């Protein structure tokens, strides 16, 4: 059954927000998802997209990467981080953020989809539209960086 855009968004909103949280943190995940979804809806290609869930994931990823690069938004983030906007959210320990910040956006995406969603490399490749080999490389490098950050012997 075809879903309306509203229904489609409500169906995937939670998982997209969690994915965005893994990429940019809890304070900016909602903004990234909003930007990404609106970007999809006004795209001329949107109506022709067959795998809309994967498309939404890729757009969230792209939006997160833009956010990551944007110095303007980084400044805004620093200002907003002083606000008590996330007072009701579970607190993330600084050491967790310190470990994640070592990862590139692509490594974060692969790590989150591997360890939270339990996806295989080929499933991640399909979702993000990249090759299996690329997923495995990002996963290996991401694990390696986290190993150093977490001070775990392997």
């Amino acid at each position, binding site marked *: *059954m*075809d879903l*309306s*855009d*509203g229904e*489609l*968004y409500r169906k995937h*909103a939670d*998982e*997209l*927000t*969690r994915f*965005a*949280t*893994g990429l940019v*943190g*809890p304070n900016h*995940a*909602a*903004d990234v998802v*909003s*930007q990404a*979804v*609106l*970007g999809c*809806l*006004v*795209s*001329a290609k*949107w*109506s*022709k*997209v*067959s*795998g*809309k*869930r*994967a498309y939404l994931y890729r757009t969230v990823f792209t939006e997160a990467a833009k956010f990551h690069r944007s110095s303007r938004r980084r400044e805004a983030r620093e200002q907003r981080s002083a606000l008590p906007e*996330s007072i009701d*959210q*579970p*607190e*993330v320990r600084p050491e*967790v953020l310190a470990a*994640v910040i070592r990862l590139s956006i692509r490594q974060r995406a692969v*790590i*989150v989809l591997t*360890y*939270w*969603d*339990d*996806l295989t490399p080929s*499933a991640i490749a*399909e979702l993000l539209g990249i090759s299996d080999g690329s997923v495995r490389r990002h996963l290996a490098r991401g694990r390696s960086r*986290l*190993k150093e950050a*977490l001070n*775990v*012997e*392997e």
Partner: protein
Amino acid sequence: MSKSEVLDMEIRSLVAELIESAPPAPSIPELEPGAARLTPVSKRRHFHTTTRSGVFTLGGLTAVAAATVLVVLLLPSTGQRIPSAAAAQLRLIADNLANQTEPQLQRNEWLETHIKEEWSMDLESLGQGGGTPVSGAEATAAVSATEWSNNFGESCYSLSIGQAQFASVTNEDAWDAAGLTNSPQQQDTPLENPTEQCESTTSNASNGAGLGFGIGTTRVATLPADPSTLAHELTTGTTGIEGLDQLPIDPGQNPGFQRVVDLLTTDLTDQTPAFYSALYDALALMPGIHALGETITHTGSTGLGFDVPSDSLTDATMIVVDPTNGALIEVRNLWAAGRDDPFQAFVSSQSPFVKQGGGLHDTIQWLDPIGAPSGVHTSDLPPTLAQQAGPLPTALITATASSGVSTQTIDTLQTQVLSRFNVPGSGAPIDSELRSAPSPEILSFTFYGPESQVRDVANVLQSSALFASVDVDYGDG
């Protein structure tokens, strides 16, 4: 656990902490029902359209079903999609449980449950104070158990222990050298197999026995119905149920999860879908629960798996639940400490273990409830248990004293009631119990006679004006 597995666990925990901090999904006004429709714009404009107040409309709502190759787990009966986060999965299970039909036990009926277990037994040392290390004395044994519980806080169980199984001849030799036997039947004094026992409690401090039911018979009515209160009490160990609050082993990161597993594998009387629904809602409120996703049990059944990665245990306890109805399908790596241990069935009277003691490391590798609980009559219990259980009560009266009424006053009334009603010719004998701690005093009577006797006693209690409440329970659900 290998170092690579340790790293994976650390990363999983780190990712879980980050993802669980996710905010609620944003509301997008343009996608709310009744909002103006969005129209597609040029590709160039796409990347500059960041306003949420635009009046674009999207034509051609040809939302073709996503042709993704990802496995999307659906509940077979409802088509509900399984969310990926543990808390959301647990709330879904709680919701589906709340819709289940409550088991209706008739008078003289017991709820019968079948369980199969696989125990791993490892004799690590002989002698006190660390003793002499024993190497390789490891075996497994299959155990099948049936339990019965009624609405009067009584439960019985029957369990059969299978022959010891060994991974290698070396293990068997070490087992034999330690004076252990290969099957219960080989002992000089034959072990009662199956072991059958009944226990009864109307108190909330029971610490009974039962294989796989380490905290003893527990009345659900003694636990809070509110999920957040339940979660708090289970996490902090303040339920007031001794066997539940005092875990035998330090559970590491999340004692609440371990206590939930205890409740899921314990013979609860008065169990209802509403209680189990609250239990899963409580679990959803606890931190650190990890969703394992679609999990296949050792028998090939499929459900949703949950565990709490912990650095204090080699293998984390894991539960597998049928999301459609909340039924527990399997528990793996259940702590054995504090539970009746089939190891005792393999210890002959000549074993050094009997004389010197020793150190054991026993776990329940898996525990599988078999089928759904069903109601049976007392006559369907094994003869020895039917005899132990005796006649089922016809009713319970629980009277809670009003504030300021002394224990002595209640005690006097109890004596008067028994002297008047617990005499030949006035019905079957009545059991009574007065609990004065914690206050207020609670006076309970258990009846085996006719309803007229129950009503007469209830009237006496109510007319005494000593009680804030007098509840009569005929045990018919």
